[in-house]
């Protein structure tokens, strides 16, 4: 194994071009209102955006998903209907709704960022049927450059940008929402 690595690196050293400079660049500006843009983009990819004053309540969720659904909640507003920490990841499929706080969101593409610190299981936001994000309005940045200036990917074992409900267009380019991950994404923006 060591030899294989040395061999590959040796060939690279022999074959690579003369050094070229690494460009430096600042975040590009933008001419939109981040909150408006975020809503526009999120809705365009099939997500739902709701402006929320105060706590999310049970009636709201019942309104969205019906009564008696199983919920994991990662926000204070609301308590989970089952204790996921005692379950193994493979026992999670009965979970219908997962509510998670989002650290930051990106207006230009609707991407919402969260990391392992809010996930009792990494698979949680993928395996649930419906996903809810709770986002502070002030945490919406303009573009990806800004987002990556604000976060540190080396801090957590896993982190992810999620920019809508799971989707596919693999059958004749027809857009289908709800491919393998969450069938819906609702973002509550809190002022």
């Amino acid at each position, binding site marked *: 194994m060591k030899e294989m*690595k040395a061999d*590959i690196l040796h060939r690279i050293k022999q074959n690579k*071009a003369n050094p070229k400079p690494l460009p430096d660049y600042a975040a590009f500006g933008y001419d939109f209102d981040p909150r408006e843009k975020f809503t526009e983009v999120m809705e365009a990819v099939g997500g739902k955006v709701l402006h929320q004053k105060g706590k999310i309540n049970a009636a709201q969720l019942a309104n969205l998903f019906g009564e008696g659904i199983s919920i994991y909640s990662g926000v204070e507003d609301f308590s989970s209907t089952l204790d996921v920490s005692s379950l193994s990841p*493979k026992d999670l499929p009965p979970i219908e709704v997962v509510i998670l706080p989002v650290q930051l969101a990106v207006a230009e593409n609707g991407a919402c960022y969260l990391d392992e610190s809010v996930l009792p299981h*990494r698979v949680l936001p993928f395996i649930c049927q419906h996903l809810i994000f709770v986002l502070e309005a002030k945490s919406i940045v303009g573009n*990806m450059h800004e987002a990556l200036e604000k976060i540190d*990917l080396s801090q957590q074992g896993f982190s992810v940008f999620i920019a809508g409900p799971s989707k596919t267009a693999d059958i004749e380019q027809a857009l289908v929402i709800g*491919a393998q991950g969450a069938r819906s994404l609702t973002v509550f923006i809190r002022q």
Partner: protein
Amino acid sequence: MSKHPQKAADFIANEARTDWHDQSLWVVREKRDKLAKGIAEWEELRELASQIKDHTLSHLDHYLEEFEKNALANGVQVHWAKDAETHNHIVHDILQKQKVRRLVKSKSMLTEECGLNPFLEKQGIEIIDTDLGERIIQLKDEPPSHIVMPAIHLKKEEIGELFHEKLQTEKGATDPQYLTEAARQHLRSHFLQADAALSGVNFAVAETGGVTVCTNEGNADMGIHLAPVQIHCMGLEKVIPRQKDLGVFTRLLARSATGQPITIYTSHHLKPKPGGEMHIVIVDNGRSEQLGREDFRNSLKCIRCGACMNTCPIYRRSGGHSYDYTVPGPIGSILTPGKDLKKYSDLPFASTLCGSCTDVCPVKIDIHQQLYKWRQIIAEEGHLPKAKAREMSMAAKVLSSPKAYRRATKWMRRLMRFLPRPLLYLNRNVWGKQRELPQVPRQTFKDWYKHEGNES
């Protein structure tokens, strides 16, 4: 007739289907245009992406070592593979140690390139491709025809029939929503049973030692987070220096690929899950050699968005399978000659050199210039028909001498004017199969100029 032209002709024989294929991909190209045009700094981003990649490739050993060092510190096991075979053995060894019988895979062109599936199947491991398009072609036992939309060549009726046979969907069902739901249920059961998950890598960040994986379906994450063992296989050109560089590349990738602002999921895998194992396999398989080909090294900048395929008027009208390689289309046509010059000698000629590929490329690979340069090498190494070489050397003699030019064109004009039509349009006249030859005017420009034009 060599391979690509024949396969293309076979594809085009069904003209309605060709039109359908062409239009499906053109729509993706239009979506890409719309999204690109929404970013004022688009051309600057392309230039930055290109420079970051140029820099990285010129310090590739350094960044790979930095990446490995950080990954190891994160508790990741890093493996190096010089070729496809070694790669396959490394993956198999990992699976064997953990007694893995069932592997779920998300889309990875690299494992396709290495022939991992057939290799593992021979060892008795069940391997399930989980991207919907990949699963479709796996069930159909076909190679992908596009690197981003692997089943773009299939119609929903064909997929409906396939799913009826393999997944017991209703006979005659063709609704994409219905078929996707069936695949969702089918794949969920495989995710839950898998002992290991394997994914490709979009970007390997040297600064963090983590790998970024982009999908729309969420299939990579489903597999990776459910199975105790996760494996990420990457070509060694996937490394980028800094976290911040992800900003440039993620802004370009999905917009170029499918005309989306970003893929639905952009995951950064840094450390193994609690109680789990994480492996990264770094694969060479000819890449370090390509790095040494000055004229062609920048093909390694490719981020596999597929935009060059969607825009290529030849790809759209001949289908991915006509290229006979994992990565088809313009980018494939500059990667393949470095792998096997003789076998793929037809591909650099499957282009009009229109240059559209170069202009859509988000990392500014000069694809059509490289096609031109491969042509020179292919001709020089004698991989073109002898008759072609003779023809060209004759043309060269005629066109470099005014006297010979006059003589030859005089003859050609006479033949074209006075030869009876059946003789002029013999089978050997390929131009004339579906096209008329130009009409021959009484006078050439030269004749006119000599007699009339010169007077002024």
